[in-house]
């Protein structure tokens, strides 16, 4: 029964089935969604850790499909909404410490750049993978990143840029962060970027996808 519930929960997250009332996806119309199944699971004694693990399975599957170009941004957003519906039930377990976050991820699109959908997808996927996410938004200057690191000293930082011409800002931000926090782990992402660029600017790694970012983060804290 537990396995069945958790499997169904993963499927709901993967396919973006938020709750019974939601008509999406069409093939699951009228069925319970991640909201109801999470409640049922917790009420029947399934551990919060197991529920979180099921959410991570669902987000990993959709994340891999997105990386492969098999699903698109709206599909990812629906998956994130389904995951959020579940996470609402898990909040008390995070607050009590029964379920531990893997770490804190501070993310923002760098100064001069306003593109954020990729960054938002990363933020949602990383949260679904069990991290606390502090999203600083777009057009974020170095000082803002540094102030946030001061509040979350153990965080990993994520920088996003879509314009080739804001890559220079990214390099400067890494430099400024590293001047104050030389050992700070910083990952980067965005269309014009690469592992080569990450190496060049002294970042800890680059990912071309939300799921890749999760894998990088998990490696950094392992």
């Amino acid at each position, binding site marked *: 029964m537990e396995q069945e519930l958790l499997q169904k929960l993963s499927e709901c997250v993967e396919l973006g089935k938020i709750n019974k009332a939601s*008509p*999406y*996806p*069409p093939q699951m119309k009228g069925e319970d969604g991640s909201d109801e199944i999470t409640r049922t699971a917790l009420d029947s004694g399934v551990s919060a850790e197991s529920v979180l693990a099921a959410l991570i399975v669902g987000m990993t599957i959709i994340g891999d499909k997105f990386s492969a170009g098999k699903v*698109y*941004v*709206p*599909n990812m*957003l*629906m998956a*994130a*909404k389904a995951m959020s519906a579940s996470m609402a039930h898990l909040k008390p377990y995070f607050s009590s410490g029964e379920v531990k976050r893997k770490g804190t991820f501070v993310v923002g699109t760098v*100064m*001069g*750049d*306003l593109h954020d*959908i990729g960054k*938002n997808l990363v933020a*949602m996927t990383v949260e679904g993978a069990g991290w606390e996410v502090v999203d600083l938004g*777009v*057009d974020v*200057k170095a000082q803002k990143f540094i102030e946030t690191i001061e509040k979350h000293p153990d965080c990993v930082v994520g920088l996003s840029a*879509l*314009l*080739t*011409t*804001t890559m220079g800002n990214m390099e400067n931000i890494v430099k400024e962060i590293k001047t104050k926090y030389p050992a700070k782990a910083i990952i980067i992402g965005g*269309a*014009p970027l690469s592992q080569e660029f990450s190496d060049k600017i002294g970042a800890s790694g680059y990912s*071309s996808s939300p799921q890749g970012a999760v894998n990088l983060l998990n490696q950094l804290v392992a």
Partner: protein
Amino acid sequence: MKSKIFNFAFSELDISKENVIRAMHGGAMDESHQFFLDILEEEFLKLKDYDGIYGGYIESDEILFDVKNKTVKVQSLEFNVGNIIFKELKQAEKIIVFTCTAGKQLCDQIKEEYKTDVLKGFLIESLANVVVETAMDKIQDMMRASYETQSLLVSNRFSPGYCSWDVAEQHKLFKLLPEEFCGVSLSDSALMQPIKSISGFIGVGKNITYNHYKCKFCTQKQCIYKKTYNEKTH
């Protein structure tokens, strides 16, 4: 300097919901898209009386190309437009400096929606992208028709931030435009407000050619513009 401002109502732009979905990912529609089309349907109804879309341009024939450095001077301001854009503009006799915006109201709506519903926020944002590009397409079509009467041709449009043209040069570009032209202003970090706005250069001349974006030569595999590249012909 000659300048023109255009104001459009949403209904004039003939945007379809399907176009918005296609612009999002460039892929084929399937049954799951109906859900997203239904959300867009609601937003289209709300926008039926929306007329806050503005675009405009100034025309300058005070231009100078530096072939060695791949720069173009417009009204004595030098722009380092990069190789690709320089090649497209170097035959120009005039440079059009344009801006176009989906408008403050629509942009404020995007911001509000993202606070409570990330999917709806994304769909409206995608719609606003199509709005501003379609409005600028219309302006460019009217521009083209007008210059054709003088036997002049019009290039594609090029914006700072793309094709290696540094986004910081927006500051210089906006110096060429009247303040708050079409309701668009620039932040310190070269971002336009309202956020769904575009700006750039268009070349005009007897020997100008219109070329599509060279997406097929670009190495950025993840770029959404490369993925949704539309082979328009004129």
